[in-house]
């Protein structure tokens, strides 16, 4: 019974590795994939990444206006 259970666990682990393999493969750029390629964390002490859409563009506008006492630099970039 214990042996069967171990075999099942091994099979499950193999299935998981097979399922994850595509996402762990090197990206088009050719560099190795690591944890930093699977998460979306901003460098500290920056606040978390915020998603902007048609309903939430006001968040960006409010942030822009809240900092109107200083020069603001806007960068618009693609991530590759």
């Amino acid at each position, binding site marked *: 019974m214990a042996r069967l259970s171990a075999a099942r666990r091994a099979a499950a682990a193999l299935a998981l590795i097979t399922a994850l393999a595509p996402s762990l493969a090197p990206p088009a750029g050719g560099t190795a994939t690591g944890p*930093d390629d699977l998460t979306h964390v901003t460098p500290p002490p920056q606040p978390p*990444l915020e998603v902007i859409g048609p309903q939430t563009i006001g968040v*960006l506008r409010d942030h822009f206006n809240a900092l109107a006492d200083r*020069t603001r630099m806007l*960068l618009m*970039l693609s991530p*590759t």
Partner: protein
Amino acid sequence: MCLRGASALQQLLERDSTRLAIIVLWEHVTVSDRKMGIPTTRVLARLSDPRARQFWDPQRVVSSTMARDLPRDTLASVAEIDSTGVPLVWDCLALFRPGVRWDDRFPVPSWGGRPVIDVVDALNRKWGNPPARADTTAGR
């Protein structure tokens, strides 16, 4: 190209200590971008300046807003025309003077351009690389 520009800008920012607010807006433009999805930790680390706040705009709503609101000559300095004839604002940097607000229309930047890698060189010359500058300098 964008990431090279981001890294070059980060190096420039490390020599600047003004009260500058940096707004980083990531958007999907290329096929590779769409494959990536949400910008990864590795990408976000390209701009590590503590004065920065980073946003992801998968539907490019800010680009569309700028294309709608900015004067044609200003838009031409920060946008390219995509294959369908629509202006696409990306790989660009724009500066807004203190006091400028975004109300009914997107504000006109005091200075800007694209691609970022080239603008960083121009900004380097514009700022002259001092260790610190007053942020009330004309054009900043």
